């Protein structure tokens, strides 16, 4: 939340002129250093992004190459001797390389789904909060109706209707998750709508679009960024969920959810087949959540002072 009155009453002459000067990335790093968990989060996120961007360089094998003679090889840390350091799966594909390429799928779907839901939710939330009236009632009702509906059921229904593919998973996740953005945007917009600087802009005869974007949305961007970060992590988990159920990414594409599902049959004997992608999901979501926490602390003016 952007609380402009957090500094209390009126201070006769404020001298902290540096506060607005330092570049934002420097402040991010500084705060991250203060919060060790933030550092850990940034590290995990950096690994995730690097894996996604440079998969061909980081992977040791072709993630699709099958080697029937080298199926279910032991990983190196369990005494395996092959050149597959995390072993191979039931079709002899290199597990490590598949996890690396899986990061690409996860991140792509997580980010795209959040972009879809953020665009829908923010636009509706701004309109509802700014204009009020019947638009507001309609959006408010839709948000409540959507939130009352079990999320995974909705996403599953959508994927079944649209057909299982990466694009449709993004669409399904995006459509079923916009209420989160709409709700926050709507409430914050209603508050800002009454702020005197917004009234001043209206009093100056500025158009609604300009007031909405320059005076309201610009002051909402920070809290929405925090929500978006956390929602990326949730979307990644939801993608694996859909893929695990066979409704998401289809084999042989290396998705962590698909790998989890494929390893399920061997979980009692070749346990690492599902455990390692599971650990990847866990670490990715953890990293993004920690970064989200750090961002929230950083962007809250009351915490920034301390």
């Amino acid at each position, binding site marked *: 939340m952007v609380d402009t009155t957090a500094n209390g009453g009126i201070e*006769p002459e404020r001298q902290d002129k540096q506060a*607005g000067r330092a570049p934002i990335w420097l402040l991010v790093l500084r705060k991250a250093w203060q919060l060790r968990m933030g550092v850990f989060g940034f590290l995990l996120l950096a690994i995730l992004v690097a894996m996604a961007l440079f998969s061909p360089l980081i992977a040791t094998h072709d993630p699709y190459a099958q080697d029937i003679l080298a199926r279910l090889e032991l990983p190196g840390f369990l005494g395996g001797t092959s050149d597959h350091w995390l072993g191979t799966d039931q079709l002899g594909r290199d597990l490590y390389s598949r996890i690396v390429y899986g990061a690409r799928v996860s991140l792509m779907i997580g980010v795209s789904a959040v972009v879809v839901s953020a665009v829908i939710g923010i636009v509706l939330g701004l309109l509802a909060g700014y204009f009020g009236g019947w638009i507001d009632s309609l959006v408010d009702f839709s948000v409540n109706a959507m939130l009352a509906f079990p999320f995974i059921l909705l996403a599953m229904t959508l994927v079944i209707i649209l057909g299982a593919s990466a694009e449709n998973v993004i669409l399904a996740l995006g459509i079923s998750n916009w209420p989160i953005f709409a709700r926050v945007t709507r409430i914050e917009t209603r508050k800002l709508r009454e702020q*005197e600087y917004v009234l001043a*802009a*209206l009093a100056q*005869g500025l158009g609604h679009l300009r007031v909405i974007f320059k005076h309201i949305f610009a*002051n909402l961007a920070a809290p929405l960024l925090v929500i978006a970060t956390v929602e990326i992590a949730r979307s990644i988990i939801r993608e694996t969920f859909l893929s695990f159920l066979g409704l998401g990414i289809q084999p042989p594409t290396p998705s962590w959810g698909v790998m989890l599902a494929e390893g399920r049959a061997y979980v009692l004997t070749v346990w690492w087949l599902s455990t390692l992608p599971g650990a990847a999901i866990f670490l990715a979501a953890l990293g993004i959540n920690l970064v989200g926490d750090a961002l929230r602390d950083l962007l809250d003016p009351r915490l920034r002072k301390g």
Partner: protein
Amino acid sequence: MAMDTTETTADGPILEVRDLKMYFPIRKGLLKRTVGHVHAVDGVNFTIQRGETLGLVGESGCGKSTVGRLLLRLYAPTAGEALFEGRDLMAMQTDELNRARRHIQIIFQDPFASLNPRFRVKELVGEAYRLHTGDKDWVAYVADLLGKVGLQADHMNRYPHEFSGGQRQRIGIARALALQPRLIIADEPVSALDVSVQAQVVNLLDSLKAEFGFSFLFISHDLSVVEHIADRVAVMYLGEIVETASDRNLYQDPLHPYTQALIAAVPKAEAGAKRRRKEVVRGDVPSPINPPSGCRFHTRCPRAFARCRSERPRMREEKPDHWVACHLYDEAEHG
């Protein structure tokens, strides 16, 4: 400075407010049913002459800020007219209203909430000017304005949080001036400031008024500030105006018991100031949801009698250009 000045009509008052009403609905329950109304402004009339400063005074919650915001149509009024240069602001369509708004500007009370924290000073002050005029030299124009309100041109690239309360209020004043309005509404422009800074800002407003020649509606709860700046004063109580007079008449010879009590409550600083018998008003302002019957002040008035409880007093010109709404003066005339 290609400001649009074609709409000026030369004579007549700049603003004439007639029977302005604003009832805010109170909504409750799942279906948002209206269960009552806050009678924030209830039939207000006043006139501002060209070049005049009208002070609008009253306790907090009496509706004086709502009047200011209504004049810019920041709320949709329940009823009434506000003729700005002869044309009713309350009946205007969006485009016409947006054009009219450029000639009426507002200065807000809270210098922290009234400036967009994401804007630099030059955008804060120059945004509307640049968009409305398309002036390529808008930055120079802003620099010039900053000088006039006592800031420096090199403050232009700073953000509001880098300034003190008084400086921020100066930025707000520069923003209001940027469109060269013919009427400025100042809603408690100094009550959030330190006393030492208040005087500076009031004096600044006074001299800017002389320089720019705008008419001025000065809303305040502080009678001493209003006395300093206003030509005429209107006293507001619970959504109604109870007395209007020139600055001098009102302070030296207040007629309405409420005005008398307000003036008696102003602390006097001069040595040997005469101690007036203080008719202090008792109790709190009644709720504007269910305002008292008859004269709204009767619940607190030291001189109320039976008629005050039943009949709403009308505005009458008790002395030349000195209007009051009080039954005491009907009595004097009829009995």
